[in-house]
């Protein structure tokens, strides 16, 4: 029997209404620019809000278009190890010297929301899960791309093992660096969507997301959260750090 649980206490500080109002404020503040104002010269504040709303509606339309275009069986290209980009770029919303330090012994992966078995996982337990590797291209929303090798457990394997409701709409992630994001269930179940514990055959270095990051070769880089400390399954739109500021939510490749 399916039991509906609200997306975990401790995870619920991002209430839906709060996200929506934050989203709107950010859209109004950042969705428009001098260029837009020049283009629509003479427009007043109400018209600016209308333009922001129009762009927001179009972004939602693009989410639906991309969900339709997404083929769960289509695999991203895999490359030979000789194609790996060296050095692999560091990228975050903060500088490299601000990367969070996480204590291996204290680390617990928390689970919440529509998941049957929500006991926290230690790192040795996670490392004992079945592991696969992939050499794939990470494409950043900024335009650059880089090829890397990641190893870990397919998210699908993990979600099935903990009894997640895979008919739910979203899988959300909360990170040690206060980053947060969410993905559609179809992508969460894609065979190349990994909970990655290793990069270039080494334990995931701090700058690439120790102890665990998500690796999704069918989505842009910012949909690949690092330093994950909680995973939750929900039907309520969870948004994301960049998504709430205006990046398209689906952002599929």
């Amino acid at each position, binding site marked *: 029997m399916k039991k509906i649980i609200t997306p975990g206490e401790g995870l619920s500080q991002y209430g839906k209404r709060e996200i929506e109002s934050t989203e709107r404020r950010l859209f109004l503040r*950042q*969705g*428009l*620019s*001098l*260029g*837009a104002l020049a*283009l629509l010269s003479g427009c007043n504040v109400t018209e600016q809000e209308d333009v922001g709303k*129009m*762009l*927001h509606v*179009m*972004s939602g*339309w*693009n989410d639906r278009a*991309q969900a339709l*275009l*997404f*083929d769960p069986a*289509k*695999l*991203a*290209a895999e490359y030979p190890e000789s194609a790996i980009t060296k050095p692999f770029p560091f990228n975050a919303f903060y500088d490299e010297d601000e990367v969070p330090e996480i204590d291996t012994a204290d680390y617990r992966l928390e689970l919440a929301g529509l998941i049957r078995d929500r006991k926290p996982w230690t790192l040795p337990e996670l490392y004992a899960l079945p592991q696969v590797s992939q050499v794939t*291209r990470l*494409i*950043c*929303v*900024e*335009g*650059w*791309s880089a090829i890397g090798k990641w190893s870990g457990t397919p998210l699908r394997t993990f979600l099935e093992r903990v009894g997640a409701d895979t008919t739910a709409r979203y899988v959300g992630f909360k990170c040690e660096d206060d980053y947060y994001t969410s993905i559609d269930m179809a992508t969460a179940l894609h065979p190349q969507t990994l909970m990655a514990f290793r990069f270039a055959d080494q334990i995931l270095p701090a700058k690439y997301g120790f102890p665990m990051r998500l690796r999704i*070769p*069918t989505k842009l880089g910012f949909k690949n959260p690092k330093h994950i400390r909680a995973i939750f399954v929900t039907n309520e739109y969870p948004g994301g750090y*960049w998504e709430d*500021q*205006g*990046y*398209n939510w689906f952002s*599929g*490749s």
Partner: protein
Amino acid sequence: MEVAQQVRWVRIHPLWVRITHWLNVLAVVIMVTSGWRIYNASPLFSFEFPSSLTLGGWLGGALQWHFAAMWLLAANGLVYLASGVASGRFRQKLWPITPGAVLADMRAALKGRLAHDDLAVYNAAQRAAYATLILALIVLVLSGLAVWKPVQLQELAGLMGGYEGARVVHFAAMTLMVVIVIVHVVMVALVPRTLPTMITGRIRSGS
């Protein structure tokens, strides 16, 4: 008064041409200015576009504009291509294009002696420019799709050398399109009576 009454107006641009032309202007202006802002987030080459010429304010805003206007560009472009083929206008106005005639017209244009007296007939340089512009826009849309969906549309992206190749193709097609548009706008400034014609569709007969 009697003279005025004898003036005959001839429609040379049907309504669908004028509507799709101006919708395309709107879509292309949004796509190019937001595209330049997106380019600036990770420049392919060692230059950036001046921020004042870009749309969106920041990368996220520019992407919103780009991914909103792409639907207008593509839908309007499909209507234009379908109408152009179905009506026979492409064959009638843009064909034939012979390299000799195009070169001769370009030489004449550089000397300031290119004739465009009858607005209903395109000279060889115009035919080549408009046909190239249509092709550039088709390549822009296809390479844009490849950059947007390099996994879901990997067969298309593969034709351009994958994601990074598609970025270069997208940039090159944009450059070609912008150059043709600049020449086009300069030509309109030199022959200003072409501008109202693209609004009303009409010319005075014999003018």
